[in-house]
């Protein structure tokens, strides 16, 4: 039985620069999920995220020679390209929000239940949906650190490389973003409950859910 080792990213990039189409295909399969997830979490739209993902890999074919493996990994480099494209898109479409929260919630909430209590599960679904909405409404520099560090598990150092800012800035932005998310979730939950729950319950629901989930 022969052991075949997967080619490294720099090797694949070299081959890609020499016109090897298969190398690009391997790189795409290896990293498309990362790029697509980041784009979608930043933009909230499936179509926009697909556009950005495609543009990222086309940009990579153009600028493969600029990648320096001693500075960062290829995934960090791709995050950087995706971030730039997302910011460009964000500036261009600032007036209209490319967010389809309901579509995300409907598609992604199937396996969310973590409690055996159906009522608890529904509440948690709703909270997740509200949290997604709150993330998408964060200012873009706060949103990107939440997406990078909390949702994609990047270290502070990697996030700082992607965002082009010091690690301390990432830390402070993340802390501030978490405070904003809690405040917004509290407000959103209260506003939504006000339509369906008795007035006495309004404002208490978030607190009850918080206590029950801990």
């Amino acid at each position: 039985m022969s052991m075949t080792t997967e080619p490294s990213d720099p090797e694949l990039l070299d081959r890609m620069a020499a016109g090897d189409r298969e190398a690009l295909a391997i790189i795409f399969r290896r990293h498309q999920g990362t790029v697509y997830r980041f784009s979608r979490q930043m933009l909230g739209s499936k179509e926009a995220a697909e556009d950005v993902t495609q543009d990222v890999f086309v940009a990579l074919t153009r600028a493969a020679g600029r990648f320096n493996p001693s500075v960062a990994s290829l995934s960090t480099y791709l995050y950087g390209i995706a971030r730039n494209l997302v910011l460009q898109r964000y500036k261009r479409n600032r007036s209209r929000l490319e967010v389809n929260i309901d579509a995300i919630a409907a598609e992604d909430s199937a396996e969310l239940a973590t409690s055996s209590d159906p009522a608890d599960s529904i509440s948690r679904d709703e909270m997740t949906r509200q949290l997604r909405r709150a993330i998408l409404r964060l200012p873009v520099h706060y949103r990107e650190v939440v997406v990078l560090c909390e949702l994609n598990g990047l270290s502070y150092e990697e996030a700082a490389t992607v965002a082009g800012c010091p690690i301390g800035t990432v830390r402070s932005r993340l802390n501030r973003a978490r405070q904003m998310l809690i405040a917004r979730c509290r407000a959103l939950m209260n506003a939504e409950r006000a339509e369906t729950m008795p007035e006495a319950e309004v404002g208490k629901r978030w607190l009850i859910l918080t206590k029950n989930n801990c």
Partner: protein
Amino acid sequence: MADTHEEQLLSDLLRDIAREDARLDAARLEALVLESASLHASAAARRSKAWMLLPVVAAILAAVALSVRPKPQTTSAESAAPARTDATEVVASPPRQTVAARRSPVEPGRPNRVRREDAVREPIAESPVANVPVVSQPVAQSPVTDSPIEFVPLVPITEQELSGPFQIVRVQMPNAALGTLRSPLEHPNELVEADVLLGEDGRARAIRVNTNGSIYPWRPR
């Protein structure tokens, strides 16, 4: 200020979202991406080939530019032939509006340059175009008199073109070729001398002839 319970719940919910989103991928885009990359590569190759053709195009343009450039006048009697103008460019037009051009003696070895204020200022709007055969025989260089002889514009001249530089080329042409500038019925085959004002592109802009038969009174006709 958020309490620790809320902080903990937020962390849990963020983990849930991360777990859900781990399923997301864009594998269906692979064919599109590969196609876009191929298109980009072929476009880049075409661009590089186009750059290689640039010197060839520049050489062709330079050759064309040199071929249409008028030759400057020279001093010696043999080579005093005026730069030939294209016969199709000399157009006889009725002298509706003319402006007197200041004259300056022709310096040997230098083309007679006309300054902006000397040039024709009023274009003739309706110029009947006629192909005029320019003559054939070169005329020896002779000093220009100070008598005010008017240039007649052959084509409309824009303000930008007035900045020159111009060249004056002396030619002989049949009387009949002058059209309405002179009466063609009167000695149609007689050769007259005329000064043609050439623009930088070698095209004739204006013409002047001696209305008394010759602009060179000391030369018997």
